[in-house]
């Protein structure tokens, strides 16, 4: 989008550089002059928040790796050593652990924004799909990171999650042994998880670069979902959105810091301060909060479906609940992007959000009594939203009239 650039190399050095490697021009075009809709709300700051969070995780993670020992005899103690002995280790370790939760909080808000404002619709399908791939990789990274302290929850999370693969017919067990490097989760498992936990964030970083590239081809969506029509609809990214994003990052940092400084362990489980014991499973094993909705779906299928046994069924629904996100751009048949102009969609959308929170609640509840029934109902609605509401609602819904341009919607009247 070089046509937006106003870059004029000033000095001789800049000109010399510009003819060889135009990094300054690139930064000016994409980080400063980039035309951005002028009506973006605070939901649009979460992309920047996520980018910062990725940096926070990478920086704290590299520091932790300098003091951590990936061996089943020493891993647990080495994390305690970081928390007690390493200078500032208490804060750095807490930042990394709480940071993972904050990362997911931002991811879910970012993704909820896309579902409401139809940001996944043409021409942003690839952008959205890269986002889902990032989400999957971040989940894998968080899971493997959680195993590293080698507490009871680490060990049993690793056991239960790797066992999911054993449900695959025929090749399940060989895959399981291949993943674990043994017949049970053990030292080889810990070692490879450490290796991959270190690697994946950099793969994520590369995907984020593609994500932003794909964003800068069509440009941002906006709360009205109406395309940018003229330069009157946009403002340059800098200083308007650099400042707004910065402000949002600071606000986001407040609860983050509060958790880190005052209640770093509240999001974790006491059982994870007991070293892994392969002979005893804790009475209540619950995944980290950010996996709960998907965990509830995994557990909800406790009955056989035709020839598919309950375990495989759970795994199919669990995988399906994530894979289905990749198809959302084609499942949603409505030509109107923003939910603001879709009177019926709104209801189904907010029900989806409530339903998702309910799934999270149920994922932590014991699998008995009324919870089992509710888990089935909420799992049903999760899929109903994607497979029925998105494709078929547009047939019955009459969207409200769209503003002719972003400027008109901002000013509340047509332009003179």
């Amino acid at each position, binding site marked *: 989008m070089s046509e937006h650039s106003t870059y004029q190399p000033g000095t001789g050095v800049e000109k010399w550089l510009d003819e060889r490697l135009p990094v300054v021009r690139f930064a000016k075009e994409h980080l400063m002059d980039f035309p951005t809709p002028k009506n973006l709300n605070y939901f649009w700051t979460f992309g920047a928040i996520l980018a910062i969070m990725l940096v926070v995780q990478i920086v704290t993670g590299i520091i932790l790796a300098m003091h951590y020992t990936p061996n089943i005899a020493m891993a647990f103690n080495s994390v305690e050593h970081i928390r007690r002995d390493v200078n500032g280790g208490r804060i750095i370790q807490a930042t990394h652990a709480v940071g993972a939760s904050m990362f997911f909080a931002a991811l879910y808000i970012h993704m909820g924004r896309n579902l409401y404002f139809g940001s996944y619709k043409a021409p942003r399908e690839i952008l959205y799909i890269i986002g889902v791939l990032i989400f999957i990789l971040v989940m894998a990274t968080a899971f493997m990171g959680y195993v590293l302290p080698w507490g009871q929850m680490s060990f049993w999370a690793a056991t239960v999650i790797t066992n999911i693969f054993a449900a695959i017919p025929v090749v399940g067990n060989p895959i399981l042994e291949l993943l674990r490097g043994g017949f049970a989760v053990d030292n080889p498992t810990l070692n490879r998880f450490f290796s991959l936990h270190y690697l994946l964030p950099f793969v994520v970083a590369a995907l984020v670069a593609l994500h932003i590239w794909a964003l800068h081809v069509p440009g941002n969506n906006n709360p009205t979902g109406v395309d940018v029509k003229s330069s009157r609809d946009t403002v340059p990214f800098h200083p308007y959105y650099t400042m707004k994003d910065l402000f949002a990052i600071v606000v986001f940092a407040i609860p983050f810091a509060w958790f880190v400084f005052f209640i770093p362990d509240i999001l974790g489980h006491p059982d994870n301060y007991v070293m892994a014991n392969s002979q005893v*499973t804790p009475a209540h094993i619950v995944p980290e909060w950010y996996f709960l909705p998907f965990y509830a779906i995994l557990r909800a299928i406790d009955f056989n479906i035709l020839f598919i046994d309950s375990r495989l069924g759970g795994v199919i629904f669990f995988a399906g609940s994530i894979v289905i996100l990749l198809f959302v751009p084609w499942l949603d048949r409505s030509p109107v992007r923003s939910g603001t102009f879709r009177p019926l969609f709104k209801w189904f959308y907010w029900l989806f959000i409530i339903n998702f929170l309910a799934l999270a609640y149920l994922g932590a509840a014991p699998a008995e009594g009324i919870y089992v029934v509710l888990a089935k109902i909420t799992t049903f609605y999760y899929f109903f939203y994607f497979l029925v509401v998105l494709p078929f609602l547009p047939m019955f819904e009459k969207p409200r009239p769209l503003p002719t341009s972003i400027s008109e919607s901002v000013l509340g009247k047509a332009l003179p």
Partner: protein
Amino acid sequence: MATGAVGAVGAAAVAWPLINQLNPDASTLALASIEFNLTGIEEGQAVTIMWRGLPVFVRHRTPAEIEEARAVPLADLKDPETDEQRTQEGHEQWLIMIANCTHLGCVPVGQSGDFDGWFCPCHGSHYDTAGRIRKGPAPKNLVLPPYNFVSDTLVQIG
């Protein structure tokens, strides 16, 4: 075409060792067989021992528990197996099973659950006194490792 095919075979030949290194290594495989002495385990008692990195239950069943397992009609079972198929003749009091729930691998809690066998706290699977799945998401009975009795008090697993 031919170049491509040779290239693909070559790539696969290089990729395989890179993947195969993930498989259980020689030292893990070397633990494949153990011997365990059963004297010490009283009737009604159960212990958990390790074999190939996996926990294994060894339960010394009471006559009442054996009776309870035998009284169950096969039609009531999700994964039908008789008590005789799950123990060895002449050693029916010994139930030896891999201790990982066949659902997702947690270690169930012994002497509990609706069927006096085991209860898996992870997602609520109940096993009976023969380690058979009776209720909950687990699809199969607790797995029996290969084992044989060297003598009445010594068992070889693996």
